[in-house]
């Protein structure tokens, strides 16, 4: 008589496997018996099944205590206890992903090993979380016991286990690893149950169960943090997710504090930033991206600004240029305790923020508020102070560090007479030095300066305003919403055209077609000679882009930043540049490894309710085009809009994971979550219920 014991977990098909084994021998004319031990066989709970085979009729119905062979269906059950009563000459047949090696407990024994779980999953047997390994194991078992593949095929077909089951069995048959381990076999006696037996009337019954159900798990939940795309894409380096989190909670003061860690100009950015954070926002996949810009604006306008600190170190820095990069550098250096002197060539601080962005986009009281905050950190500012190259060298001797952020001082031009430069035009607008009543104005260019010039011209009484752009609207670098606003106000866009000659109230233009991409990656405009045309024009403004004045050279303690260094062209990038310069100067710069960016695949969008974006109110075009009052009024309920943030890849303690754990083994204490792996069954509900991809299941 041959006796064998199968160890498995509920749901893996162990009892069926016992029957298959018995049937294999039955097919060869033997008597056979197969049965399972029935108890509380929940899916995942350890179970045993038995097989007896004999030439004579089998009359023994007891459980097997001294098996000739042992079969283990679940890798987590492999251990010394399965040898209990096992004959030293028999087979140990294991489902395991590991190579057969010198397992101490199995020394001296014959082992057959196969990764039945992987094979079963590959052939789609069972569910993802509970693969059924029995037919796969049958292949390996058959090989060990000397059955042919033909016999296996016939056996499985008889039970209707063809198709994937047969393929899996065949694969196991072919690839099972068979080896006899060296050494002396360990003899493990059959275990006897413990002595005391409880009674219904015993006073001390009712204690907790002794089973550590963590041993059932084949996967384990882990927590991770990914980088939200907004954070990854913010040129200023703001922790967007974190400030939104605070705003969502209604704590605008804390939200402002988060912003002020990286940027001193939230009110400015909250008005003029092109918001790459919003463009990259994953919420677009659900309904609309979060209106980060208006939340930043709201926070800057309504929260309580903290008290500034005053310098406490002996180091001194000089900053040339009071545009956003310079302001940012001054702020961060002053916060680090340095004495800062800020030099500005024009008569007012602010750079492009003051002179280049019209009031209807950026009211100057907002700029003054944030400039004032920076200055209150003990920064000394000097206007009307033009610093040329020799002056920079002098500063470099007098100060511990110099940061040059003079922006883009020269405007690109084309050879065309009677035209005004856009930047100069905007400066004069700022000084209330322009009247355009009744004039027909044409602006050449596609960036923010061009759009600002056009919209300003309209407000200054122009009879008509057109933007002439050498590519199409889609390629215009200006902020899309600004283009839309301009068109709403009545600015006309003329695409695919270049100005050629301007005089006597007429502008001669030429149409272009777009050819191969140029060095900027955009398609190159190619003039079409036959397509010249003229339009009436009283004023031509060129806004074709700016360049840095490269006359200033470097030095050991001279640093360069902002548009002067990078030509990035955004306020946010300038802010980031100024901060990094301050970090380098104060020796606190350390490049950080960032976790990968969270994509929509990491999220469970089905767990979020649709909710439309809160849009800022805007003054209607026909009213606003007549003045320079601020067009946008911001949003009413920043907290509600901030709550739309999905917090991609970053835990915001929504507790969904904890609330849905069926076994209550996930607990939170303060901000810390803890999985009790002793009891976690690996069901995966926590991972499925985490909306933002923080909890994920990993194979054990």
């Amino acid at each position, binding site marked *: 008589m041959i006796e064998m014991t199968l160890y498995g977990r509920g*749901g893996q098909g162990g009892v069926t496997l016992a029957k298959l084994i018995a049937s294999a021998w039955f097919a060869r004319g033997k008597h056979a018996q197969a049965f399972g031990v029935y108890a509380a066989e929940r899916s995942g709970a350890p179970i045993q099944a038995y097989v007896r085979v004999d030439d004579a009729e089998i009359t023994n119905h007891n459980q097997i205590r001294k098996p000739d062979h042992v079969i283990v269906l679940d890798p987590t059950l492999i251990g010394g206890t399965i040898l209990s009563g096992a004959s030293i000459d028999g087979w140990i047949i294991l489902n395991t992903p590991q190579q057969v090696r010198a397992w101490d407990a199995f020394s001296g024994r014959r082992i057959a090993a196969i990764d039945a779980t992987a094979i079963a999953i590959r052939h789609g047997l069972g569910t993802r979380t*509970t693969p059924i390994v029995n037919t796969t194991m049958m292949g390996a078992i058959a090989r060990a016991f000397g059955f042919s593949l033909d016999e296996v095929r016939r056996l499985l077909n008889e039970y209707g286990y063809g198709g994937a089951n047969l393929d899996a069995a065949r694969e196991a048959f072919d690839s099972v690893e068979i080896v006899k381990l060296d050494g002396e076999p360990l003899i493990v006696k059959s275990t006897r149950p413990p002595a005391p037996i409880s009674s219904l009337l015993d006073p001390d019954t009712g204690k*907790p169960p002794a089973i550590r159900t963590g041993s059932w798990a084949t996967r384990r939940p882990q927590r991770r943090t990914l980088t939200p795309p907004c954070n990854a894409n913010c040129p200023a380096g703001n922790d967007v997710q974190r400030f939104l989190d605070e705003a969502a909670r209604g704590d605008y003061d804390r939200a402002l504090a988060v912003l002020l860690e990286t940027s001193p100009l939230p009110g400015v950015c909250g008005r003029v930033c092109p918001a790459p954070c919003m463009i990259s926002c994953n919420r677009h996949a659900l309904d609309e991206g979060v209106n980060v810009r208006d939340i930043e604006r709201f926070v800057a306008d309504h929260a309580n600004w903290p008290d500034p600190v005053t310098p406490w170190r002996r180091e001194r820095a000089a900053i040339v240029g009071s545009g956003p990069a310079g302001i940012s550098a001054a702020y961060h250096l002053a916060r680090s305790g340095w004495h800062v002197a800020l030099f500005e060539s024009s008569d007012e601080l602010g750079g492009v923020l003051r002179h280049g962005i019209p009031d209807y986009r950026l009211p100057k009281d907002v700029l003054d508020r944030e400039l004032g905050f920076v200055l209150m950190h003990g920064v000394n500012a000097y206007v009307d102070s033009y610093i040329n190259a020799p002056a920079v060298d002098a500063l470099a001797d007098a100060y511990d560090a110099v940061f040059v952020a003079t922006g883009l001082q020269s405007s690109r031009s084309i050879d065309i007479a009677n035209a005004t430069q856009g930047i100069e035009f905007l400066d004069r607008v700022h000084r209330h030095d322009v009247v355009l009543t009744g004039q027909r104005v044409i602006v050449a260019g596609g960036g923010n300066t061009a759009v600002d010039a056009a919209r300003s011209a309209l407000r200054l009484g122009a009879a008509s305003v057109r933007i002439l752009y050498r590519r199409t609207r889609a390629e215009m670098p200006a902020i899309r919403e600004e283009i839309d606003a301009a068109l709403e106000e009545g600015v006309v866009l003329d695409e695919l055209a270049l100005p050629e000659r301007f005089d006597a109230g007429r502008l001669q233009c030429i149409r272009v077609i777009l050819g191969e991409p140029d060095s900027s990656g955009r398609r190159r405009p190619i003039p079409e000679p036959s397509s010249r045309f003229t339009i009436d024009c009283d004023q031509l403004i060129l806004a074709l882009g700016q360049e840095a004045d490269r006359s200033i050279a470097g030095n050991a303690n001279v640093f360069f930043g902002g548009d002067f260094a990078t030509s990035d062209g955004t306020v946010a990038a300038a802010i980031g540049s100024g901060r990094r310069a301050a970090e380098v100067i104060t020796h606190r710069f350390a490049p950080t490894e960032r976790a990968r960016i969270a994509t929509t695949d990491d999220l469970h969008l*089905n767990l979020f309710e649709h909710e439309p974006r809160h849009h800022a109110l805007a003054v209607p075009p026909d009213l606003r085009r007549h003045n320079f009052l601020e067009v946008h009024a911001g949003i009413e309920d920043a907290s509600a809009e901030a709550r739309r943030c999905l917090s991609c890849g970053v835990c915001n303690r929504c507790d969904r994971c904890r609330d849905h754990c069926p076994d209550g083994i996930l607990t939170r204490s303060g901000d810390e979550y803890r999985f009790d792996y002793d009891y976690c069954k690996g069901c*995966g*509900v926590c*991972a*499925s219920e985490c909306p933002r991809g923080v909890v994920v*299941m990993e194979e054990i």
Partner: protein
Amino acid sequence: MSTIIADEPLLRPGNTNCAGCGMSIGLQWLDEAFADHRPYLVIPAACAIVTAGAFPTTAYGVPTLASTFASASAYATGVSVVAELNGDPHPTVCWAGDGGTYDIGVASLSAAAERNEDILYICYDNEIYGNTGGQRSSATPEGAMTSTTPRGKAEWKKDMVAIMAAHRIPYAATLSVAHRDDFLRKLRVARETRGFRFLLMLSPCPIGWKSSSDESIELIDLAVRCGLFPLYEVHDGERYTINSRPDGTDLREYLARQRRYAGTSLDPEVARVKIEKQWEFLEVMARLSS
């Protein structure tokens, strides 16, 4: 008079419920809603009593009485009456599967409801006799394959809430593990109501439904959203409140995730019509109640 063991969970870790069991989630939320009102549990033959594990240990952290299959409501009546006679504030809660509620237990349930016993009866309905390997019950939905309906059950699911409402009990409601706030609110309403209260929870069963354990909650969400499992409350058998309306999700999405519906003869179109008819009834009752 009562001593509350505040830190003892109602369902202890180390219980032998399957990974992803909907009933486990229900017990966690029962624990939460009854944190300060520790119940006596009466559990008939069901997966829930196997949950306790083997004597002399138990996975239940509250006093629990195993009843014979048909008798949960009767045993609970005894417990509840004696508690009331003795001013014992601990509530009596029946925690029963669909077999012990819809079928063999329906007589004692109906009687206890008719007598308006002060019992909270919660049925966790996994739509099969789960404990015995997954045979059909009268709670099994039309089209579902079970071990005794291999080609899909022909009959429609019995409407247990309607039956309970017909007894004019103070409170009856359906519960969804995908709608936690609603679930907890209803448990609290039940907790504060006296007399017979009946709650029906659609309980995802990865083994019985042949679904993946990590999809348990999502499945119930689909069932609610496609209208198959309405979320509503009935006060005193006549005032209906609808908590969530179907949002146009296709029934087929729900069916596709469970292998118990693979190869079934259920016609989703026919099912959709039946679902719509039920919703017509609910809407009428809700309007009459407002």
